[in-house]
């Protein structure tokens, strides 16, 4: 293992964690990410046993998950493998596909509610133009958030992930923190 010490996307040694009312925001540096694109005419593989989801979908299997990012293209998630060369591992699972390392292209903020889905819906309506009512568990989409491009993943009724560009981590955290804080202030 290298002797260089990584920092979090928000620029600290440890990931940031914040609870605001019923919501907890957590920076997740452990999430390994790699993109998988089919070669022309290729068939979808099942890396790590995953069934690659249809447009707008997210599917998980154990520590792995996949979400649709575009026609014939997915992002594969590997929990706890943010420090590794996850793209290389995926390449072995999906021969003949175009794989690109994406882990540090992004920052993942995992948002958990202790009061069910309602607070997440309230948060979403202040952040993104996506209908929370039609965005139940298993949905993933890319959209704009305060002029930033983000992926939203509804991991469970009470869990939402917002994955944004890593270099925008500070601005994205500010946006989410402000919106979540205002839900508490109301």
């Amino acid at each position, binding site marked *: 293992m290298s002797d260089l010490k990584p920092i979090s996307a928000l620029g600290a040694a440890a990931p940031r964690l914040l609870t605001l009312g019923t919501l907890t925001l957590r920076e997740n540096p452990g999430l390994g990410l790699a993109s998988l694109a089919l070669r022309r005419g290729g068939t979808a593989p099942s890396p790590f046993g995953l069934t690659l989801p249809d*447009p707008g979908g997210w599917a998980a299997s154990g520590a792995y998950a996949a979400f649709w*990012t575009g*026609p014939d293209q997915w992002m594969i998630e590997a929990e706890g493998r943010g420090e590794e060369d996850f793209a290389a591992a995926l390449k072995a699972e999906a021969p003949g596909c175009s794989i690109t390392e994406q882990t540090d292209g992004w920052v993942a903020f995992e948002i958990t509610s202790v009061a069910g889905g309602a607070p997440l819906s309230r948060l979403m309506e202040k952040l993104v*133009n996506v209908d929370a009512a039609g965005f139940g568990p298993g949905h993933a989409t*890319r*959209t704009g958030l305060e002029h930033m491009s983000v992926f939203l993943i509804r991991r469970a009724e009470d869990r939402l992930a917002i994955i944004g560009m890593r270099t925008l981590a500070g601005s994205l955290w500010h946006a989410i923190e402000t919106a979540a804080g205002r839900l508490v202030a109301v």
Partner: protein
Amino acid sequence: MLIPHPLLGPRDAQEFTYLGDAMMIDRPDGLAEGAEAAFCDYVFQRDNPAGLHRELWFHEQGDRSWLVVTRNTVTHEILGAELARDVALARRATDTPADQGDAQ
């Protein structure tokens, strides 16, 4: 405005950037005979119809698909949207200009 994305359903137009006439799919062959005249038309000549218009939109804040959207420029009614890639491939197969495809 809402754009009816063929894969993702209606999405707000704020997620898209606009390019223009779908005829831009029909890029001339740069090595063919008479290519310069064809390129002058391709680069500079655009129709500006009051009514149905097939045009290119890029889902930049989304799945990065280019779409061919059929829109009424007078009413802003959108009659349909297709993946530009499908339009381009079909164009190659049938030689139908991209700005004259079927509106859904």
